[in-house]
């Protein structure tokens, strides 16, 4: 934190531009009704009014940031190395979610090799062990991957912890309730 940082000024300018874009471009192009509408000779509030109010909040915030707080003493300094790490975390999470989504159907496709009557994941999504496949592999990858990223190495311990946590979550969410669906079984 320092008063040397120009983060408030940059942030303020960004939000002033965003709010102007929101109020004058996005809202008019992406809402069906205006700020006030005349319907059957009665004036009513249109769908554009509320988002315009949000835009006004953003614009006011941006202006105050530029005018009153650009020299504030407690401005954060942005650590780009940290941002890079979080970007890697997000990539790891995205891969895990994709594994969660597609591991089940992929396992069924694998099991179908050489079968005369092919299985369909959609019909098996309430049948163990198929219904756990995606959550198990995706969840294990997510937990073990994140632990390994922090510790800087992949260990058997982190994989075992991830497996235990995922199995515990299956026990909590799936076993006692028939009507709850683990990811991704509500989509497929």
């Amino acid at each position, binding site marked *: 934190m320092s008063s040397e940082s120009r983060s408030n000024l940059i942030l303020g300018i960004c939000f002033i531009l965003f709010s102007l874009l929101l109020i004058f471009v996005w809202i008019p192009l992406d809402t069906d009704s205006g700020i006030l509408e005349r319907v059957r000779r009665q004036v009513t509030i249109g769908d554009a009014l509320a988002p315009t*109010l949000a835009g006004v909040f953003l614009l006011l915030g941006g202006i105050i940031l530029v*005018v009153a707080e650009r020299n*504030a003493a407690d401005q954060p300094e942005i650590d780009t190395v940290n941002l890079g790490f979080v970007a890697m975390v997000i990539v790891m999470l995205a891969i895990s979610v994709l594994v969660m989504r597609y591991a089940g159907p992929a396992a069924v496709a694998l099991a179908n090799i050489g079968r005369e009557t092919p299985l369909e994941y959609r019909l098996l999504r309430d049948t163990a062990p198929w219904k756990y496949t995606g959550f198990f592999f995706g969840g294990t990858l997510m937990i073990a991957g994140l632990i390994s990223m922090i510790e800087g190495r992949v260990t058997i311990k982190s994989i075992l912890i991830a497996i235990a946590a995922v199995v515990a979550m299956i026990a909590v969410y799936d076993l006692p309730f028939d009507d709850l669906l683990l990811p991704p079984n509500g989509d497929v």
Partner: protein
Amino acid sequence: MSALEYIWSGVLAVFLGPELFSVLGVPIPVTLVMIFAGFLLGIAVGATPGLAGPIAMAISLPILISIFGYTPDALLPVMGFLIGVMKGATIGGAVPAILFNTPGTPDAYMTTLDGYPMTRNGQAKKALRVAHLSSVSGDTFSDIVLFVCAPFLALLVEGYLDLPEKTALLILSLSFIAAVVGGSPAKGLISTGLGLLVAFIATGEDFYPRLSLDSPALAQGFPLATAILGVLIVGAVFKELADMWREKRSSGAVSANHDSGEQGLHFSDVQRLFPYIGRSAVIGTAIGALPGIGSTLAATIGYTVGKARYQKRKSAEDPDFGKGAPEGIAATEAANSSVSGANLIPVLSLGIPGNAAAVFLILAADSIGGFNPGPSVFRFTTESVNPELVIAFGLFTAMFIANILNWTIGGVFMRSMGVMTRVPKQILLPIVLLLTLTAIYVQETRMDAIWFTLGFGVLGYLMRVVAMSPLPFVIAFILGGKLEESARQAFAATGGDPYFLFTHPIAALFMALSVGVIVFTARNSRAKATEART
């Protein structure tokens, strides 16, 4: 029936209701057992990061209704269970906030500010004790006020707050939150603006879901849980992971928190904390009685008022608010816990909830039938019995029973949670993350919800990076829909008067206060910036 007879009938409805089983010939009423079960479940889910009371309520409500059926007899057991969950989760919610810096609910966010630094200083158990004492004291105070004042306050709120006033009150609460939370009114306004914007995406009255960019994924809008848990929990997890990684890079090891120093809570501590608990309990109770404003605002105001008092009185060696002051936890927990009791006044008299838990009480009443939250609830008819009023006093009794459980089992449970500090954070945080994503999926059952949550997590992380509080975002997101709805109704009710916020005296006062609080804090921060420069 006289007022006292109504109260007594409510108490008897709980204790002499249908019997579940008997112990040594003493019948055990089903409502009591349900309150107890709900309370235990509430503490468990509240203390589990990523879970929270509303999720437990959402999952259990259909199960309870299928067990008890759609008869008026089901009202007290089902709603008693939900009240048990609400009370248990309130104290349980402070546990992950204090131990892991991951608030399970928006209300617990302010608890992290001092609770987590205390944990880092080795004072986790003491922080939990402070949270428990404050939470239960605030809750009990609120329930007493509820019992005594409910009918009068219900009539008062209904009499003075019409639609224009309610709209102005919502604008005032948003402006206030923007101005006071986080120390920067500009960033508070931006955070509020973002929350409103996200709340307004794909909502509205037109056939086309506004601002959805023609995308089918956005056409349903953002579910409440994705925005709130994404910004508050996932964002905090990202920040913690990044901080841990940086720490590991610089020191070669990941630090762990160990208990050190005195963990007990002595009478002198209680004496020191009591003024903060008392003030916050009054603030929380007053806010809880206003419709549409929930415990998050109470926690924020309680914290701010407590901070102002603390700055004047603290000695040089005491930690500041936000650096591990027990008074900070006391001010927050007493305020947010004292909302739930008083909150039942607008819930029962107007049908407007102040927090997510109250939404489920309304939903339960609506699903079972025989109890319609609205003005008729507090009608003291003398010639005939008003069964809704008896149920209302039955619910108040359920709250008191849950409070007694809170004072006893709650404390023991929270103390036992201290053991969780030994779990290494680099292991726990990824598990919390998956638990949060799973909980959201179980509620929403679509992968889009997981992507939205991760997206809001990134937003929450970036907000923390630029020192912008995520709390105004969350409150604006929750209140956005209500604000638009009440503005539309007020506009229609005033015959299309575009100046309805300024032509009604109380509404005009609220609007003047809204502008005043922003101008005042902006001028203050400018003066501070100039001071820092010179």
